[in-house]
């Protein structure tokens, strides 16, 4: 029986060096539904927050989990009717005894005593196992330290001094997603991931930079300039631009001004644009016929046909109306400023991108004013990616056959990913293929999107690690969490994220889901610029030494 003074001493096995903050004791629950933890101690009720990271000390195992729900309980079912008004004395007597708070804790991992490697939780601690707020050491043990393969991405809520690190080596093995509504910090997180992967040499990047914010410096919402990849990684990054004027206006010269030749466009590229351009199925079929007949320069030839030639074509079985409509649509393409009749000699933009990637340089493809032009964005991203994927596929297969070196992993970053990966077209676009076949050919995706519900379910299920900032739409929340273990509990956590600088991380590159306050990008950029970064952990002390 309790003596009326709630509170247990720190349990054995608490991490040394830091006093564990006790939250409560296990009073019930199940592995599927989570543990019921009665919160004890004074004032602790309001300190316990959804998403807080906790440890449960069983007899033989330690468990790690997160708080997924909180509730107020009372031993007396008629409590509300028996207490007519707020009586300070009764409140003091009853709080923690007859009326108390419970937290729902979802156990995620467990370690045996004396064993360092955490396993997924497959058993439960017994009743009355003490539950503590996780210490720095606990978090470090689970998420690793900032080193050659890990990147410090943020801190758990209310643990400002603790670092949650992502295992980048695991991350680049699969396609990943960064989700969140506009302004929630997607771009900052993406920038941190891209920079960290590049800096550690774990993969080469091809970034379709729709809003021109990754290559050169961009402006944050709060108004200060944030460094782009080019500024941090210097010559390791090449910026390609479809809109050199925009780049000049922003004060830099792109490494390569992209021109796309009409002869580089294949019927498959048009097929993907069919809904955007409003081309019928018959029109798409006509494209294949034209391509078979006239080869690579099929668009130029087709657009240059006179009335007789068109009539001749119609006489051979194509519908005149279809051909006329197709011609009008293809003219729209031709009018885009970066399109030109023939690819520049030496292979054009696609060749250049490929050469850069193969030589280990990261490529940022800036769209400038075409970022808002869906046709241009989808066309270019798809066209380039398809050829690069084919090349990687060829090289990987050759390497497998000869036992030679496979190409370095390539991470392709696409924004507004639902435009390529929506239910209807995911099966047609190269991005759908890459997402599904995963790392077989050393190419993976980093999907950045604010409407994950628009992405094909099958593609989404292949996303290894999901980094999710705030999402408002219920359907988006459901889509992101689909297939994730403990998704029902995570939903509560996700729907309560703050609108900025908070993210829920879960999936392949993390041992367990965790909510973090994301780190400051300026600090990150400063840290990146220090010599030796990424090879040895850089602590605050080192920074001080360098900068005084």
């Amino acid at each position, binding site marked *: *029986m*309790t*003596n*009326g*003074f709630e509170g247990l001493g720190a349990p054995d096995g608490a991490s040394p060096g830091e006093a564990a903050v006790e939250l409560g004791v296990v009073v019930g629950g199940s592995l599927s539904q989570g543990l019921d933890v009665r919160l004890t101690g004074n004032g602790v009720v309001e300190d316990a927050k959804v998403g807080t990271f906790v440890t449960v000390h069983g007899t033989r195992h330690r468990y790690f989990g997160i708080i997924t729900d909180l509730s107020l309980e009372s*031993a*007396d*079912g*008629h*409590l509300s009717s*028996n*207490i007519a008004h707020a*009586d*300070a*004395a*009764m409140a*003091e*007597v*009853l709080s*923690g*005894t*007859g009326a108390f708070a419970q937290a729902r804790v979802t156990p995620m991992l467990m370690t045996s005593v004396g064993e360092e490697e955490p396993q997924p939780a497959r058993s439960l601690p017994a009743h009355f196992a003490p539950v503590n707020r996780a210490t720095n050491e606990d978090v470090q043990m689970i998420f690793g330290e900032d080193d050659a393969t890990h990147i410090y991405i943020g801190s758990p809520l209310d643990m400002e001094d603790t670092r949650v690190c992502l295992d980048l080596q695991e991350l680049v093995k699969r396609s990943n997603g960064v989700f969140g509504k506009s302004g929630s910090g997607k771009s900052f997180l993406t920038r941190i991931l891209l920079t960290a992967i590049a800096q550690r040499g774990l993969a080469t990047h091809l970034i379709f930079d729709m809003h021109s914010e990754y290559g050169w410096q961009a402006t944050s919402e709060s108004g200060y300039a944030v460094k782009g990849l080019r500024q941090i990684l210097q010559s390791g990054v090449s910026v390609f631009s479809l809109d050199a004027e925009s780049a000049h206006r922003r004060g830099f010269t792109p490494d390569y001004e992209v021109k796309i030749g009409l002869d580089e466009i294949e019927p498959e590229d048009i097929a993907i644009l069919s809904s955007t351009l409003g081309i019928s199925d018959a029109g798409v079929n006509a494209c294949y016929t034209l391509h078979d007949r006239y080869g690579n320069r099929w668009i130029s030839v087709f657009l240059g046909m006179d009335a007789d030639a068109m009539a001749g074509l119609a006489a051979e079985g194509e519908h005149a109306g279809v051909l006329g409509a197709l011609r009008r649509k293809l003219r729209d393409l031709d009018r885009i400023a970066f399109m030109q009749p023939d690819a520049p000699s030496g292979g054009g933009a696609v060749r250049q991108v490929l050469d850069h990637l193969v030589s280990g340089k990261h490529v940022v493809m800036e769209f400038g004013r075409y970022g808002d032009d869906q046709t241009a964005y989808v066309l270019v991203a798809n066209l380039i990616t398809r050829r690069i994927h084919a090349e990687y596929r060829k090289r990987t297969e050759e390497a497998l056959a000869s036992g030679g070196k496979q190409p370095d992993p390539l991470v392709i970053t696409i924004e507004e990913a639902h435009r390529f990966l929506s239910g209807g077209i995911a099966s047609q676009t190269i991005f759908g293929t890459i997402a599904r076949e995963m790392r077989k050919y050393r190419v993976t995706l980093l999907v950045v999107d604010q409407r994950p519900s628009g992405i094909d379910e099958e593609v989404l299920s292949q996303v290894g690690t999901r980094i999710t900032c705030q999402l408002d739409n219920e359907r988006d929340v459901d889509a992101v969490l689909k297939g994730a273990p403990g998704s029902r509990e995570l939903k509560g956590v996700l729907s309560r994220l703050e609108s900025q600088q908070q993210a829920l991380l879960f999936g392949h590159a993390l041992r367990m889901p965790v909510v973090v306050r994301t780190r400051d990008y300026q600090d990150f950029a400063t840290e990146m610029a220090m010599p030796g970064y990424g090879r040895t952990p850089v602590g605050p002390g080192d920074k001080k030494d360098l900068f005084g």
Partner: protein
Amino acid sequence: MVSDNIAMTRFGEVVDASVEQLVGQCHRLYEAPPLGALVRAGTGVWGVVSGIATSALDPSRRVIARGADVATEAEIYAAHPQLEKLLRTDVTVTVTGHRESIGGANGPVHQYLPSQPPRIHTFLYSCTSVEVCDFFGGGGQPRSEPRLDFVHLLAGFGGPGDDVLAASLRQAATAFDDPRAFLVAASRAVAVVLSGDTSRINAIVRRLPIGEGTL
């Protein structure tokens, strides 16, 4: 107050005994300890005064009214000195603990029922403040936490028993440096025992001076 004289604290003797309840007859009429007071029977059994009653010594002879012709109550007793011997004051003691005897020597005091009731005619003593401290866990060096297991024995009665419980807590609190902290801790123990019965907990708490400025 170690100097308290044992003889001065003795107030009666056990005339009816069971494991959970004793009836003691006071040596002097009307000189019973107050309701809720901690008392001890001999050196082995502790209890709380849960009832006080004064009646005729011979239950077959009912007391009659004698004050028709006198002005004050004291005059009645002065005119009839035999009354002191014909009346008796009985106390009911609810047993709340006992001292364990280890090989005849004194062991620790427990807040649960003894294995045997005390013998008839065992002397009853009011507990000194030192004894109260010892029993409830107040004072002492180093200062220990309140021992509140006895609450369970008292809370079981209900009805007037809640008044006894509240009275005993009020008395015990006086032995503590911080009486309010003791009362809050004790009330919380009561809340645990009476879990689910908020109205009873409320009734007990209202009998305790927990509110601001009452202690």
